[in-house]
């Protein structure tokens, strides 16, 4: 089946939104969830000598943020190519 460029672009945009919504859920859970809302409850557990909630608030969430951006950049590169909208040729 042939799709018009505009349908293709709409599907690409939906794929992007779906990926970034999933990653934003993780972003919210580690920072606002573990680091703020659940911090006191998590503090009963311990990790590397830290109370777990405290660790999320001052260390863990930041590591997850870094990972999230690289996962997004990597997955998006694949999605870009899949829909033929990648900027590969721009690099040449």
């Amino acid at each position, binding site marked *: 089946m042939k799709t018009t460029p*505009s349908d293709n*672009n709409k599907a*690409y*945009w939906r794929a*992007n939104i779906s990926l*970034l919504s999933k*990653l*934003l859920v993780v*972003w919210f859970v580690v*920072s*606002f969830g573990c*680091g*703020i*809302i659940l*911090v006191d409850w998590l*503090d009963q557990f311990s*990790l*590397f*000598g*830290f*109370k777990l909630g*405290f*660790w999320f*608030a*001052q*260390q863990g*969430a*930041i*590591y997850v*943020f*870094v990972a*999230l*951006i*690289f996962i*997004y*950049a990597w997955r*998006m*590169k694949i999605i*870009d190519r899949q829909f*033929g*909208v*990648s*900027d590969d*040729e*721009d*690099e040449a």
Partner: protein
Amino acid sequence: MSTQMLTYLFVGLSFALYIGIAIWSRASSTKDFYVAGGGVHPVVNGMATAADWMSAASFISMAGIISFVGRDGSVYLLGWTGGYVLLAFLLAPYLRKFGRFTVPDFIGERYYSRAARIVAVVCLIFVSFTYVAGQMRGVGIVFSRFLEVDVSTGVIIGMAVVFMYAVLGGMKGITYTQVAQYCVLIFAYMVPAIFISIMMTDNPIPQLGFGSEVNDGSGLSVLEKLDSVLLDLGFSAYTEGSKSTIDVFAITAALMFGTAGLPHVLVRFFTVPNVSDARLSAGYALVFIAILYTTAPAVASFARLNLVDTVHNTPYAEAPEWFGNWEDTGLIAWQDKNNDGIMQYGSGAALSPTKPSFEGNTGAHGERLLNNQPTESINEVYIDRDIMVLANPEIAGLPGWVIALVAAGGVAAALSTAAGLLLVISSSISHDLLKKTLLPKITEKQELLYARIAAAAAVCIAGLFGIYPPAFVAQVVAFAFGLAAASLFPALLLGIFSKRANKEGAISGMLVGLVFTFSYIAYFKFVAPELNSAEHWLWGISPEGIGTIGMILNFVIAITVSRLTAKPPQSVQELVDNIRIPSGAKAATNH
């Protein structure tokens, strides 16, 4: 060589390096000046973004604040890093695809409106100037303590250096000096942190060190020991919070969304070659930032424990040398309330009013005498939290070259941020105000000249703020984030993710967000500061966190008004379709 000589040497060498880079990377076109030619490698841009982002506040003050507030300090750690996720997902790639020079450029084009562009310029200038004044002050503090020149001379030297590379090199000069400044500042931050971590816990990784056992045989970890020591002295436990959950939530959100809306950070993503590089570059930026931001809480806990150990119950006559050095700068003071010659440290303000005012004579033990009234509290020691990072190497007894390094790092942090801010101010004036609004007929050469003049003027105004700081600056800096979150962030986000968002919606949203947030802050900080406590706040949200509510208001109004008024024109809907697709980013820049 003495510590003093080493400090001159390190700071002097770093300045020579920055100026050398500035001469090597002069800007020859407006594109060089505004976006460094648009061909910066994502790792290089990430490093420059990190230096741009980490200001004197991150380098000097953040660990100090965390040191004194413990877990509540997490708002800064989460807020100032989590924003990069939003930036990478929601803004940076699309703004890069849009591919012009400034943030008001995007708002002006997307909302097909000169008024929207001007509102964006006003938000940008307000946010950036409050910020830059704090940087110049930071340079002044470092100079006055480490090079023993007065604050004004320090500010003038700092201005001269920024002038050199911001005016000559524009974004191109700034990008490459920021890379050098990042290297200087991160080295200067990590070396003492690693030393202290080894000294206290035998663990060379500070990020793990503050959860490890203290090597004094007590069998307690650093945080456990800190909790118990602080509880003994009448403080609350370090690892427990005292702010309400809703307030911590609101402040963190305001800082995160504010970060994503800050023009001097956003504009860095206009400098990379294409869209996928913009995504990656945000990741690299956060890696470079996270190195410092995950070390800061470790430094904070080490420093607090060290401080209590060194100061509490120590006779003043036996106090280490650094105590006297910092007393000379007015950032530490001791008032012998019980006349025993021994310093007692505890919870509560030591002095009334809180900040020391010295009467000019020295007392029985050699301490500087104070005009302040003693308070009821048994605490006799005033400590300004800004010194925790700067004095940390001295408190831990590290060698002179480490102390000199920290001085060079503090200056690098302040200068790199100041330069980035000055650039967005000058380009919004020369590009958005002059070229796009008032004098559309000027040639590129003339625009470049105006950009340089605007940068020079901005440096001078920033310097004046540094020398004669208006009393409100220190308080306002933290609010720049709330204002950015409540004004620019929603307009940018809707501009990309909603084709229905139109100029009526964007302008009313920005104005309502800005006015609401600004009024709330002004009311509690300037109009009725005596009411500034949780029971008077809206839903228990402090002025620091109110930007989050301002942002929600902005979104609600922008969406509602957009629905009730005409759709944006076809050309704008096509623009939105175009920026959502990565391909063709290079072509878009060469318009």
